[in-house]
């Protein structure tokens, strides 16, 4: 990528709205979101339940279409993009970490971690060693052949981190990655995410309720009722809640 490409924001969101349902039952989940995220940043998205955080990151990840507005991610116009292209965009550019892990229960740890490579067309013979090497770095070298049901929550989330990063995506979306975990596992998870995922050409978005993880943020955006109401820059490592969080 030419350096100039890093100058324009990695994520560029303008006037994004999203409605669910229709007629009288319509819910307006997003009401004009404005957000730019530069390359190399770990942005946290906070706010009360139902304010639209998941809806917003789903749109940025290309899994959900906005009702209106502009969405540009890594130079791609996600609104204009045809559905098949959006699938390819996700395949090569996006890694996901979910609150509920969403590992495939029938696959072992290493197989789960290799799934994005398999989806990208790698052979198992190439994909499994690559996934195993990453799991090893995440401290799971001895649990490669365990099924998710045989792993603790923290271990499962580390498998999910490996899966999110194994194909080297430039956008990492984490929705409540620590809220199913205890304090220690939450801290380990955020250490791994910020240590492995934050790179100059990458963007990491973390949706969270968990104030203990705020120190890992470069900026914290607060949402309320379908809008971003404030963005606060942090020095990495700064402790405490953003001033707008109630």
């Amino acid at each position, binding site marked *: 990528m030419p350096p100039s490409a890093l100058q324009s924001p990695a994520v560029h969101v303008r006037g994004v709205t999203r409605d669910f349902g229709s007629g009288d039952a319509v819910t307006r989940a997003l009401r004009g979101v404005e957000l730019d995220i530069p390359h190399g940043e770990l942005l946290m998205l906070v706010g009360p339940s139902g304010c639209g955080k*998941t809806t917003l*990151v*789903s749109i940025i*990840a290309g*899994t*959900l279409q906005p009702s209106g507005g502009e969405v540009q991610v890594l130079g791609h116009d996600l609104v204009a993009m045809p559905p*098949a292209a959006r*699938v*390819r*965009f*996700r*395949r*090569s550019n*996006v890694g*996901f970490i*979910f*609150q*509920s892990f*969403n590992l*495939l*229960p*029938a*696959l072992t740890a290493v*197989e789960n971690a290799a*799934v*994005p490579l*398999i*989806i*990208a067309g790698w052979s*198992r013979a190439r994909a499994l060693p690559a996934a195993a090497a990453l799991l090893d770095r995440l401290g799971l070298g001895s649990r490669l052949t365990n099924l998710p049901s045989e792993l603790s929550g923290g271990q499962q989330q580390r498998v999910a981190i490996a899966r999110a990063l194994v194909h080297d995506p430039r956008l990492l979306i984490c*929705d*409540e990655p620590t809220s199913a975990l205890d304090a220690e596992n939450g801290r380990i998870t955020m250490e791994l995410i910020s240590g492995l995922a934050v790179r100059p050409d990458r963007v990491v978005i973390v949706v969270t309720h968990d104030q203990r993880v705020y120190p890992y943020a470069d900026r914290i955006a607060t949402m309320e009722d379908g809008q971003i109401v404030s963005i606060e820059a942090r020095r990495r490592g700064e402790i405490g809640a953003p001033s707008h969080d109630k």
Partner: protein
Amino acid sequence: MLWIAWKMLIGNRAKYLGIVFGVAFAALLIAQQSSIFCGLMALTVSQILDVEGAGIWVMDPKVKYVDDVKPMADTHLYRVRGVPGVDWAVRFYKGIARARLEGGSYEQVILLGLDDATFIGAPLNMIEGSIDDLRAPDAVIMDIVGYRKLWPDEPFKRGRIIEMNDRRAVIVGLARARKTFQSFPVVYTRYSQAVRFAPPERKVLSFVLAEPAPGVPAAELAGRISAQTGLQALSRDAFLAKTIRYYLLNTGIPINFGITVGLGFLVGTAIAGQTFYLFIVENLRQFGALKAMGTGNGTILLMVLAQALHVGFVGLGVGVGLAALFGWGTRSFSKLSFYMPWQVLVITGVAVFLIVLLASLLSIRRVFIVDPAIVFRG
């Protein structure tokens, strides 16, 4: 990706076995009922099949199937022999006789009278005695299943006497015959003797069996015989087909079996379809995750089809295997006849394929419309 589909499928052992069971059950029902149906159809023509060596059957024009004997005048034999292209032609008697056993009880038997000189139509597989023993006065040969039916648990007794039409018949041998539709014992004797065992009638000739001269096609010669004699002449294959068609069109057999096979199909589709549908619905989240990670709908469709085909093949194997096992297990009961030609396998295979295809089509829609964003919900 197919490997992931396969892992997903067998990952839940109980669900997997449930789907396979549903498919296997349908396959079993369809294969088993079709085989019994084929067995029954084979029974209707068993007496044609048992006569080997004659390419053409000549009979009264009104005969509709092999058991529908309409006796002809004996002179017709010579008229058939006079048709150019006929290599040889012989008499064949087929009728039902009442046999009186030693104890005084009566049993119906199928009486077959073979040409005195050539024994055309004789059983090929003798178990006791030999076909030449038929030359002795009053000699008859009985089929072994019939003998066991008349005298259960008794060893073969050469010289055993039965009476037909108040005439003595001496059983001199046992043969193996195909099971017949009426399931009466089959009694073989010489033609000249058969007409005496049979109830007295003005005309007695049931069939003329003929063989075309070398190089003359049976169907063509049959046409010529019909034209010249005014009789009904059919090649062996045509007579088989005519008999089976008669049973298909004039009995409730095809409908009864059609209903059972149809029910098997419905039940199989319901069980397999439902379990497969539930399997897919329970895995929607996993499919959603795969979609979020960039799996296209085409690949998802392939995965679901592969899963459906997998359970289809395994279920087909298990079901057909069980059906074959059933046929093998019941082979010694003479009442059921079980015949599984390759066509049954094809029909069952097609039915199973349709079942799993229906099942996957029912569920694939759910996967297609699943929002990949489902994975964000807790």
